[in-house]
């Protein structure tokens, strides 16, 4: 255990009845690091966060947060962590200001005492301070929830899918705030289903079926993707997808927004070969260009293995 580690997990396992939620998950997060967990729904992210926030007891393995054991020292640990569960846990019938001062009082502090920490976030919702939390937009709820989670100046911040269901602009603003908090020395663990957010983390852990498959920097994860990758577009995207999947040399075919990401089984592939095949198959407006892999491509490839 490194002296500078903020979170250390060793072979954490957890099962709910017959369902395995986590299996032998080990990792560590440095102090002041922004660490992201990427994985599809039901991959075990929430279970992992609940173990780290002392809400669940692991079946096997152990974890330390801020040097405290998550099971034995849970009482002391609860004073030091800031937690934002998957759903924005606010009181809908309390106003913005009341929510904030309630959470401050629960942690034995006041809004004024730690205002400097949340000021950047809170100024954006302060104009609505007398509005009920239930009447806020998704992005504003998220900012309020983050303010509430920060009001007691936690050393570690755990955010479980904080941007799910939030518009793109608010997501962007939210991540800007996280980067600022990181520079204030707070360790941040965040889970997200959005791959584009992974690029903003110092390191990401890819998690699937309760197993942590890879932990690395976003750049290294992208570099670990060693096959030539092509972005392909055509007039009829659905037919393009089915045609490519029927192609005998196809290795992987995934729809990514407007285009289809494709890798080939052959080692030497030219875009023209693919264009040729697709046009013969009756597709029009075909464009094939080599592209660099993103985190999501690497993740998809790992999932296939």
């Amino acid at each position, binding site marked *: 255990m490194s002296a500078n580690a903020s979170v250390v997990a060793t072979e954490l396992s957890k099962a709910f009845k017959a369902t395995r939620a986590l299996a032998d998950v080990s990792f560590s997060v440095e102090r002041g690091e922004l660490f992201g967990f990427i994985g599809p729904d039901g991959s075990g992210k929430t279970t992992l966060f609940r173990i780290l926030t002392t809400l*669940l*007891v692991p079946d096997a393995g152990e974890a330390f947060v801020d040097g405290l054991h998550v099971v034995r020292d*849970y009482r002391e640990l609860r004073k030091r962590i800031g937690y934002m*569960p998957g759903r924005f846990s606010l*009181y809908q019938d309390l106003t913005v200001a*009341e929510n904030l001062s309630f959470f401050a*009082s*629960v942690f034995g502090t006041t809004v004024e005492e730690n205002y400097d920490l949340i000021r950047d976030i809170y100024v954006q919702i302060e104009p609505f301070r007398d509005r009920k939390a239930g009447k806020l937009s998704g992005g504003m709820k998220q900012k309020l929830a983050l303010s509430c989670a920060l009001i007691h100046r936690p050393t570690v911040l755990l955010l479980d899918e904080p941007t799910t269901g939030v518009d793109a602009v608010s997501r962007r603003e939210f991540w800007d705030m996280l980067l600022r908090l990181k520079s204030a020395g707070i360790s941040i663990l965040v889970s997200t289903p959005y791959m584009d957010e992974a690029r903003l983390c110092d390191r990401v852990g890819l998690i699937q079926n309760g197993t942590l498959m890879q932990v690395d920097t976003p750049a290294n994860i992208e570099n670990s993707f060693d096959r030539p990758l092509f972005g392909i577009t055509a007039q009829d995207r659905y037919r393009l997808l089915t045609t490519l999947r029927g192609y005998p040399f196809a290795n992987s075919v995934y729809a990514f927004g407007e285009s289809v990401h494709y890798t080939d089984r052959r080692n030497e592939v030219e875009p023209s070969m693919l264009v040729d095949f697709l046009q013969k198959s009756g597709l029009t407006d075909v464009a094939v260009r080599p592209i660099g892999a993103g985190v999501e491509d690497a993740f998809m490839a790992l999932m296939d293995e």
Partner: protein
Amino acid sequence: MKSFRGFVIKEFFHIFRDYRTLLILFGMPVIQLVLFGYAVRNEIQDINIAFVDSTNDHVTRQIKERIRASSYFNVIGQLPSERDIREAFQRGLIKEAVVFEPGFASRLAHDGVADIRIVTDATDPNTAKSMQAYTASIIAHYQRDHLGSTALRIVTESRMRFNPELKSVNLFVPGLIALILMLVCALMTSITITREKELGTMEVLLVSPLKPIHIIVGKVLPYFVLSFVNVVTILVLARLVFDVPVRGSVPLLLAECLLFILCALSLGILISSRSNSQQTATMVSLAGLLLPTVILSGFIFPISSMPVALQLFTHIVPAKWFLIIIRDIMLKGIGIEYFWKETLVLAGMTLILMTASARSFKTRLE
């Protein structure tokens, strides 16, 4: 302590901002009291009756006059013979017929015995029973006043000792207090705690330095205060509107109410710690608490007329013990020396429920 105060303030915000909660808290006691006081009555009034009296002598005339004079009955008229009663019942003209035997007065004079038959429409057996009892009681009074005690052999049995006017509101008010306290304390607390679970705020509360005891007490305290306000409201209303007496000691009555409130609150916490949604909590509270409180506590149906198995079951219904206690205080006006056992049972139940609910309240999610 500061965090605890913040918690309680937050609970009061929840209550006073939700008009449905407010309606249940403050509207329901009044509505129920009025409903039970005016609509749900066991006593009878203005029942249509007819006489069958072929002789129409001075005795039967006097008895008929007595019946006519009472507010319970509304005399429709005479029927020619007993055979006509059936049709009058079927057509809904009358609910009861009083049949005097032919030559009533002369038979009474010669044999010392004369027969009166009271025929009632027993489609509604409870009302029929009351009608019979009322009629018999009127006749018995007549017999006592005019004929001396042995002349007419009509045995009437009545138990009206503590409620001489047979006012059902006297009977209902104690039951109503039990019902409303169950509803406010058990149902509302179980809902308010499960709501935090549903919203996900419980997760945040748990991951905070608040101790479980703070969360429980903070949740329960407002309802403790408000349900006590309710008890006082019901008692004052019952007194002012329905003239329901509190014959015994008022402080003792309030103390017993507080005990029952604690008991109901513990039940509410217990339910909420076992259920994860407001819906489950509501269902369990309604089916598991309200129904027994209404049906198996002696509130409406006498326990003594239940099958033995159900009678045994009523022992674990807290409201049963509470009802015995407050009826004793309010209607009989007797002191704790008569119901210390029931108080002890209730206190024991409360202690067990409190321990169980404190234990089952988890410091984690599972």
